């Protein structure tokens, strides 16, 4: 028998969650009537959502800012390529290639998580470049040239497009739900405590290394899944693109513009990023300059991102991870 309770999820938030559930179903049915172009663009959007949610889990909640998570995007794609070469069916390799990255990230955590703040960020970048160089040594990858996932050409183009689309949708949904559940539980409080003050977190009993390692491995797998999905839709694997710093720039952009350390922020950031890409993508270099300008404007005028703006309007953060104590005795 307990005397106190945690305040239930507000009505408005429940409505948003229900709306998201319905959107998920509508997106699931979309390949039946959407054009090939729309399906392709939405696949990319789901990949961006996976990247943004994942990076936010790491940087926004655990305070581990990495500019080297392209290492896992590239590794996921590479692993998929290798698995398919070994005879694994490509659609299974999308998931397996991502999941297997956990086995690499787990031991890697023992080294990189000993570093703090800026050291960690830079070490991750160095690791990403090192891993890219190693992958380029694999004769199968042919150095700079890369390799294509030619087996995918054996499938009917519509069937292939729609399958990858649906997998991206389901994986993006899974990444969102898993991070939401995770942050609502004990681990959510512990990661935020570490972000705010690692020593004090240890003093109140948080196993700081264990918690950071779990978040690090999850973020690696998230990025790797984005990598396999991206390879499946792009077909061509080139080490400089797969391990390129642009992935980190995208993740930074989406999370900072959407709202660091909120559950809704990275999703909104990914939608905005995709929209900008669709509208300005044909302007070449100007598109990148435009992204830079948007990022600067947000940094100067909306430092807490879109979710920060919404919170000011509503007087509270929508879909907050905050747990409030119900003052009423039950």
């Amino acid at each position: 028998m307990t005397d106190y309770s945690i305040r239930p999820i507000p009505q408005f938030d429940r409505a948003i969650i229900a709306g998201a559930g319905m959107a998920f179903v509508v997106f699931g049915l979309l390949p039946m009537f959407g054009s090939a172009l729309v399906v392709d663009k939405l696949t990319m959007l789901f990949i961006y959502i996976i990247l943004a949610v994942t990076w936010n889990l790491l940087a926004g909640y655990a305070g581990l800012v990495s500019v080297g998570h392209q290492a896992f995007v590239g590794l996921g794609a590479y692993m998929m390529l290798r698995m398919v070469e070994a005879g694994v069916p490509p659609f299974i390799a999308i998931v397996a290639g991502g999941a297997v990255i956990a086995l690499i990230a787990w031991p890697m955590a023992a080294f990189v998580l000993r570093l703090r703040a800026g050291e960690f960020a830079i070490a991750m970048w160095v690791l990403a470049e090192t891993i890219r160089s190693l992958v380029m040594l694999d004769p199968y990858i042919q150095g700079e040239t890369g390799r294509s996932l030619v087996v995918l050409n054996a499938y009917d183009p519509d069937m292939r497009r729609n399958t990858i689309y649906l997998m991206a949708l389901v994986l993006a949904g899974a990444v969102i739900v898993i991070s939401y559940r995770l942050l609502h539980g004990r681990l959510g409080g512990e990661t935020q405590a570490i972000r705010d003050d690692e020593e004090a977190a240890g003093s109140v009993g948080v196993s700081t290394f264990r918690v950071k390692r779990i978040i690090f491995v999850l973020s690696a797998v998230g990025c790797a899944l984005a990598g396999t999905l991206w390879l499946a839709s792009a077909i061509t694997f080139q080490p400089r693109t797969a391990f390129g710093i642009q992935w980190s720039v995208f993740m930074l952009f989406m999370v900072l513009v959407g709202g660091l350390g909120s559950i809704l922020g990275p999703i909104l950031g990914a939608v905005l990023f995709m929209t900008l890409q669709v509208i300005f993508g044909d302007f070449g270099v100007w598109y990148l300059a435009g992204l830079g300008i948007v990022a600067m404007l947000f940094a100067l005028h909306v430092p807490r991102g879109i979710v920060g703006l919404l919170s000011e309007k509503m007087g509270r953060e929508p879909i907050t991870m905050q747990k409030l104590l119900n003052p009423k005795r039950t």
Partner: protein
Amino acid sequence: MNSPDLQSHLVARRLRKSYGSLKALDDVSFHVGKGEAVGIVGPNGAGKTTLFGALAGSFPVSGGQITFAGDDITHDPAETRCAMGIARTYQVPRPFLGMTVFENVMVAARAGGGLSAAPATDHAAKILEQTGLFALANTPAAALGLLDRKRLEVARALATSPDIILLDEIGGGLTEAELVQLIALIQSLKDNGMTIVWIEHILHALIKVIDRLVCMAEGRVLAAGDPNAVMQNADVRRAYLGSTPE
């Protein structure tokens, strides 16, 4: 004075901690018995807070040994010591600024106290009542003033359900009325069997609760034992009060 024996709860033997050439702890031996309340006084830079850091596992010591309930914990990390029942507060409060007061206490109740969600909520709420923070439960910790931050330090430490609590200058800056409440709180903890080690400059508050007093200066223990006897000690008066007994 008796030497530390097996009855003692937390025992530190010949602890050393150096920062470069500075000896923050220079051969410090310290012990506290189960259910005992020990006060620590000493001028600034005496090594009091460093001793707490060493006992709670906030950093590795340069030498010496620490045992708790007979187990050697010298090399255990802070979270293990917390789980065993050692909790500390920080002299300069270190709340989790991105979280509410309730969430701060909740993390401690779940991680350190090992409680699952529902009992942790209950436990956290009761501790917030006990420490006078209940009305501020849903306030962001970043919005708290210094006094409430100090209360939160105590609340968070208590939430881990400790056997022994290390209190670091939690009385400083309180009004006389608040101090009376604080003394009552600590006395009630002691009455419930909690072991207390309390660093405090406000001697008259300390004297009301403690069984034994330790005076430190320049990384060493100057004197330890009956509070009044320690305060009459010539070395203590010279180092701490800047005067000699008449």
